[in-house]
């Protein structure tokens, strides 16, 4: 009898037909997304940040205000006007207890574009002839 069943979740390879839990049923620190907002930072005033955000579920735009402290410190380098981010609102489970939580995740790919743009702007501000003259 030919019958395909979920294989061992832990040892199954990339063509395992098993979606879902992916080998782990007891996430110690899991985050369940309830909804997400997509957008970009509009303005930064000290540690106060305003971002124009879109809710794809309700098809609505709005302004989200939050503080720099809401963002993981290692992500602060990504905080600038125009940077793109997603805000995930949901529940985190820590040691078996659920609580409301949110995550600010910056688009890494677009951050790289921003870095490239800043390099290009720097090149325009310091044309090659000026650099060679200084040399």
């Amino acid at each position, binding site marked *: *009898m*030919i*019958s*395909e*069943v*979920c294989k061992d979740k*832990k040892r199954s*390879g*990339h*063509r395992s*037909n*098993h*979606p*879902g*839990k*992916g*080998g*782990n049923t007891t*996430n*110690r*620190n*899991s*985050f369940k*997304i309830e*909804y*997400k907002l*997509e957008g970009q930072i509009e303005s930064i005033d000290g540690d106060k940040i305003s971002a124009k955000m879109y809710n*794809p579920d309700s098809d609505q735009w709005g302004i989200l205000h939050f503080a720099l402290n809401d963002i*993981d*410190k*290692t*992500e602060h380098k990504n905080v600038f006007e125009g940077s793109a981010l*997603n805000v*995930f609102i949901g529940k*985190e489970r820590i040691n078996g207890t659920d609580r409301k939580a949110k*995550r600010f*995740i910056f*688009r*890494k*790919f677009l951050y*790289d574009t921003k870095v490239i743009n800043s390099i290009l702007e720097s090149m325009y501000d310091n044309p090659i002839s000026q650099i060679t003259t200084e040399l």
Partner: protein
Amino acid sequence: MKSKIDFEKRPSEIELGIVFFGLFNPDIFSPKWMFDNRLISKNDLDNIQEIEQEQGNFRMFFTEFLKLRIEKDSNKKDFVRVWINDLKAIEILIDFVILFNPLIKSSAEEILEIDFKTHYQFDSKNERKRLMNKSLNTDKLNSIFDKPKLEVVRIDGNSRINGLNNDMQLAISPCNRPDLTNPLHVNIYNQLSKLVDNINIFDRLNEDLIVSIVNNSIDKINLYFK
């Protein structure tokens, strides 16, 4: 982000994965290596869930949103698979693979797989059987046995997308997971390869390509349920 097509019938679980093939050493792709290459954040690194590891053979670990498995293969087709279980996190997956791509492309084969796996649940085994048997609609096959029951469906197809060849497979089979009610796998595998020699598949890997394939996969799953 291009809007995604909605499911006609909503699955109870989904998994969207991107698979790189090549010669990979699972010991190199540690969470620390991922962090050093800006693929995951410090918060991810601090809270990483190491699921399992066998030195030199395989490694699997999870962040809050991403799951990774790196595995050596005896047929020299090692793979790195990164996946999500919630389509809302698709941008995190996309950013990861776009940044990961240049780091591994010298060790990777010019083949990419984007797989889209789902679990559907049914109130009864009969309901699941009725859906499966919809595909058993030729008299020739129907007459072989009394009360025939279709167990597995595999349909291969092919398309072209953004200058790449896409070998697709729709794979449907019952599942025996005890924590789900009469579950059924409805999976779409998209294997991308280059059409002509003078292009590099990794140069074509971008957000539009991934979102198009996701939309196309959902569209195919919807067609099965229509």
